[in-house]
């Protein structure tokens, strides 16, 4: 039976982790490579890096981090943030990323998704969608880290990226992100019901029960979380044992 995945996400800015893990065993709380290794040793099913570096000049930095992490972590590594071109994707994959997530660029030009999935295979193309609720059961796609409205309906867009070859959707609720009040389960349910590719739930996790909701109520294939793991509230192992105790199958 396919297991539900737990994916810790590390936000990286100018080569340093922004929301650092608060683990005592850490030598350097800002080093993304060291933190990724801790997660991977702790049983993370995948590792996700989100590069939130504002400038374009610093792309080399994330590539270097990916290169170092890939030599130490032998679980899948997804990298996103600022991916705009086929060349960006090539560089990340060559450095050792297994999947690349495309956000704003996929909204601007869905052909990038099509071209990338044809060139590298759907298995390594994730489309990250940032959605905000606009009315009952209606969500709009936002870009640029949630700053820009697009007027595009999230369900329509999710279907469109699937048709264009995306292998997975990383779905973040902008309303919930950072609130620690749980995923937007209605949004998740709507997207998982309307697409046939795996959906990764993101935005809003504050408790282990929220992970359960994302999988069981929202239908997500994987759950992504940042702060509950970073600050040492829970270890990956705690999350897995909790889900397992509630009959949600995970890799123990």
């Amino acid at each position: 039976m396919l297991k539900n995945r737990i994916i810790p996400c590390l936000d990286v800015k100018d080569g340093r982790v922004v929301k650092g893990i608060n683990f005592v065993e850490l030598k350097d709380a800002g080093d993304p490579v060291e933190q990724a290794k801790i997660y991977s040793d702790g049983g993370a099913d995948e590792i996700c890096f989100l590069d939130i570096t504002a400038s374009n000049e610093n792309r080399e930095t994330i590539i270097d981090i990916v290169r170092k992490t890939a030599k130490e972590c032998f679980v899948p590594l997804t990298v996103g943030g600022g991916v705009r071109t086929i060349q960006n994707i090539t560089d990340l994959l060559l450095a050792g990323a297994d999947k690349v997530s495309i956000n704003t660029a996929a909204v601007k030009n869905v052909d990038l998704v099509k071209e990338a999935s044809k060139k590298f295979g759907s298995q390594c193309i994730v489309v990250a969608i940032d959605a905000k609720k606009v009315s009952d059961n209606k969500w709009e796609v936002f870009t640029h880290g949630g700053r820009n409205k697009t007027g595009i309906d999230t369900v329509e867009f999710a279907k469109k990226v699937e048709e264009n070859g995306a292998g997975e959707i990383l779905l973040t609720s902008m309303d919930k992100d950072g609130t620690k009040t749980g995923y937007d389960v209605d949004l998740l349910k709507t997207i998982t019901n309307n697409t046939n590719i795996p959906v990764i739930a993101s935005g809003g996790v504050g408790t282990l029960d929220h992970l359960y909701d994302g999988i069981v109520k929202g239908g997500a294939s994987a759950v992504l979380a940042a702060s509950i793991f970073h600050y040492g509230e829970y270890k990956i192992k705690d999350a897995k044992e909790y889900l397992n105790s509630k009959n949600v199958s995970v890799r123990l």
Partner: protein
Amino acid sequence: MNVTIVDYQSGNISSVINSFTEVARGKVNLEVTSDINKIKSCDKIVLPGQGSFKSCADSLNKISGLVDTLKDFAITNKKPLLGICVGLQMFADVGYEEAETKGLGWIPGKVSRINNQKGKFKLPHIGWNEIEIQKESKIFKDIKNKSHMYFVHSYEFIPEDKSVISATTDYSSKIVCSVEKDNLFGTQFHPEKSDKIGLKVIDNFLNL
């Protein structure tokens, strides 16, 4: 011992290189190449593969002499070869991804899309799934039945002779996830991404 990872433009092979490098350190010389002479003279071959069946088959055929060299190595000389993901699928006679395409024809069978029961099972089959060992295989030495391996694929290899199947995994049906036929080994899962247990599979292959 010299082990060659065949670099034939079959998609992203960085992770294969990283994990084999990790396991091979200090005991095996590892080379990543498409050089026919180097492939001929090595002791073991790893055939990775990502993307579609068609793109991998086309890439194999594009390198002059590669298909014949691999055949001499694996079929005539019976030296160990491990195919990973689409690399395993290449063993088949034919694949149906994108277009009907001829494979290497080393293990009779076909590669077709997983029957996902009208959308009941999402495709690609992405994530960690348990392997059910069907027969003793040298690459599963010290690996427990029901170990978790990492999968990413939408197509499955269906061999005619079921006795080549060394493990299956359950996703809509019993999907073939590894084969062993004499000196030929193949995994549909990605040992290079399957944590310590995956590295053990690689280690077993290198220790053959």
